[in-house]
């Protein structure tokens, strides 16, 4: 006879879209609860804010290209959201970063122009906003640089990164810095904790300085601090006397973890709840409305009721949408109708891995107000939306921010939240 907990809005999903929706609902005065199966996409993504990188050619001016994309693809999430929502939500995020738990840390750039930043394999990737700790890696202004790796971090190969940057016309060489580790497989987070320690950092900088040449910038794997990245990065620039920048790593992503902490602090600071380990396993409906969802909990499912739900659990990538062994596609979270599923006679996948895979635009079917088809009080945000191929487009964070924000705004402006809850 467990009861339900009642909220003004329940957000499903703890990635960027869900955390943004939750934080903004809480800031708007709603009693909100974010339910997350586990820690989400932030820990796997580079931590940059990519709005539109390819359409399909590399994009220099994301807002201009976004207008063209919307005209060409009315089924794209950006066609529902519009450029203004992307701009507004990016500003909101920048403000939360600056008032957040990481002192001095900020995101730089704007949506007028993309800049190109090195990846772990030395490709240049377009991003609109990046953590300040990455900003000096802007490929257009980079002339001479040194990629610094360490055997302590086995997933980062400085020689590969430097060789590929050379092909992009950047004079890049590489060195290995000595970092003593006590276990075979250290990850970027373990090393980031060390960079939080000023004394350790100073010793590291002292050793590295001996290996550097004059007039070269320094690119390091993204591990410059987890609690005080601004301090760690600024200190290294100061000690080395040159621009220093982070290069995103394979997961786990330290800049992504910082972003998660910032969003978590925004949610909690505004009074929102976060429940981890809470996979949604069923939903109660009354006609065209979802009235409550049940989550997996110890001993017995827990139930959360609300007049509004935001489905931000992701798409095929997170497993929220699955293609089962009978080749049937489902929304595993709320069982909502999908859009973009290839027909019975159409191919679902193409042999070329990097081709535009037919399955990749699948998402929960929505109307122009992000309302799920067949569930009038469920709004959809982030990678659960149909119509985008965010990994090809470089659009994931832009869609997550704008749709999470829009969903929050729609719930708040519906105004009925409090009245219906009461």
């Amino acid at each position, binding site marked *: *006879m*467990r*009861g*339900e*907990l*009642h909220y003004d809005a329940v957000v499903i999903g703890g990635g960027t879209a869900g955390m943004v929706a939750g934080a903004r609902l809480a800031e708007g005065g709603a009693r909100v*609860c974010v339910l997350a*199966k*586990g*820690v*989400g996409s932030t*820990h*796997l993504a580079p931590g940059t804010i990519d709005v539109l990188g390819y359409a399909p050619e590399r994009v220099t001016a994301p807002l201009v290209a976004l207008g063209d994309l919307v005209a060409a693809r009315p089924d794209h999430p950006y066609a529902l959201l519009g450029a203004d929502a992307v701009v507004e939500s990016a500003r909101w995020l920048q403000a939360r970063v600056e008032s957040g738990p990481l002192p001095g840390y900020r995101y730089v750039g704007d949506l007028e122009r993309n800049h190109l930043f090195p990846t772990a394999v030395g490709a240049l990737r377009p991003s609109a906003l990046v953590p300040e700790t990455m900003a000096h890696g802007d490929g257009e202004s980079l002339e001479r640089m040194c990629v610094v790796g360490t055997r302590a971090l086995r997933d980062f190969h400085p020689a590969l990164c430097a060789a590929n940057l050379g092909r992009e016309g950047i004079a890049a060489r590489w060195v290995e810095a000595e970092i003593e580790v*006590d*276990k*075979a*497989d250290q*990850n970027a*987070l*373990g090393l980031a*904790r060390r960079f939080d320690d000023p004394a350790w950092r100073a010793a590291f900088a002292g050793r590295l300085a001996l290996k550097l040449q004059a007039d070269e910038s320094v690119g390091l794997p993204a591990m410059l601090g987890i609690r005080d990245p601004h301090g760690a990065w600024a200190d290294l620039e100061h000690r080395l006397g040159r621009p220093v920048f982070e290069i995103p790593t394979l*997961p*786990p992503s330290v800049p992504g*973890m910082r972003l998660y*902490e910032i969003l*978590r602090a925004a949610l*909690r600071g505004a*009074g929102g*709840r*976060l*429940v*981890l*380990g*809470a*996979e949604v396993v069923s939903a109660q409906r009354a006609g065209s409305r979802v009235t409550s969802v049940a*989550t*997996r*909990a*110890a*001993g*017995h499912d*827990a139930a959360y009721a609300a007049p509004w739900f935001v489905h931000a659990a992701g798409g095929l990538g*997170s*497993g929220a949408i699955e293609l089962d062994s009978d080749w049937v596609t489902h929304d595993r979270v709320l069982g909502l109708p999908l859009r973009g599923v290839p027909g019975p006679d159409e191919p679902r996948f193409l042999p070329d891995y990097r081709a535009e895979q037919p399955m990749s635009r699948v998402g929960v079917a929505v109307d122009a107000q992000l309302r799920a088809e067949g569930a009038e009080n469920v709004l959809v945000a982030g990678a659960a939306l149909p119509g985008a191929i965010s990994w090809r487009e470089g659009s994931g964070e832009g869609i997550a921010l704008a749709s999470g924000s829009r969903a929050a705004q729609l719930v708040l402006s519906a105004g009925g939240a409090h009245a219906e809850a009461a």
Partner: protein
Amino acid sequence: MSNGVLEDLLLRGSIDHCVKCTICETQCPVSNVTPLFPGPKYAGPQAERYRVADEPSVESSVDYCSGCGICSMVCPQGVKIAEVNAQARDKLKRQKGIPLRDRIITRPTWLGRVGTPAAPIANFTLASRPLRVLAEKGLGVHRDAAVPKFAGRRFSRWAKEHPSPSTGRKILYFHGCGTEYYEPWEGEKVVRILEHNGFEVIVPKQDCCGLPLQSSGLFDDARKVALRRGRDFAPYLREDPNMLVVGNATSCTLMLKREAREILSLEDDADLKLLSERIYDICELLLELHDRGELKIPPEPVNEHIFYHAPCQQQGHWIGKPALELFALIPGLEVTEGNARCCGIAGTYGLKAEKYDIAMAVGADLFGQVKASGAGEVACDSETCRWQITHATGQKSVHPIDYLYRAYGL
């Protein structure tokens, strides 16, 4: 093999969902401070592929897993990492033999029954440096580890003499060993808060939940103990379909809710199943009452600044942090929510001589946050965590319901 065969297969089968994203590795409190434990992904989904039934374990690092369960909670793919590792630890213990120390410190009932009547002597022994050094050398219980003081009285004796007013709205109370032998006053507060909100509190005959045995890999003994708890409570639950059980020892309620059934393969036991479905953590229950408008709003201000640490085992209920919602009802109470993962003690883990330093290193982040917060007291739902926090910071640590108790003016 009759019990829970399918469940074991499902548990083990969950490792196939691992996509090697490493999120568990970023959150594991232990592997982030010591090379002795390579991390949940290595010890769990990866090493499990090399563990073959009836063949020797291929590696022993899983003994350094503290069993906190954070990995399973944060896994976005639903892999039962901690549970798989707990079963691997049991297998390892069978193979290598169980130290005498682990046979003793995992039995709070024995300790309590011996220590309570002889509390002055027992407490003197536990506080005596030379005797603790001897215990470390002889038994492997670290000389500095936080051990509680015997209260010298048992909660159940108080409960027997305390008439709970008959209200027609009955609830069963599972108090656990910490309340029984070390902190009987916590149980008295639980009872008075429940009575204040209209409940008639029944304290059935009971004993340990089996968690210390389970977490040290003594599964056979843990099963016997956990099954007995099912027998203790099931008759009341069968008689009244609305009857609930509530506990303030959050790790013990988690054991009875989920871990005993899942990790010890007791899914088929009907009594334990009934108990697991009806047992609540105290803060979880009070928050649900509040949501239904059935919890009295506390009138008295508590003008204090406290630090709240949600222990791993509370987080393992997968219900968020209900204590924070209760604090918000208390006028004047200022709360700093910590975001450190674990205090390190993990029940009996931090008592063990070879693990004490690891436990203190795990907790360092929390202890630093407590000090930096400037808060006076620390609120935490688990007794062993409170003892560890007080041991490391010197600051008083209490159960979250203490503030509600004070705000009710009880």
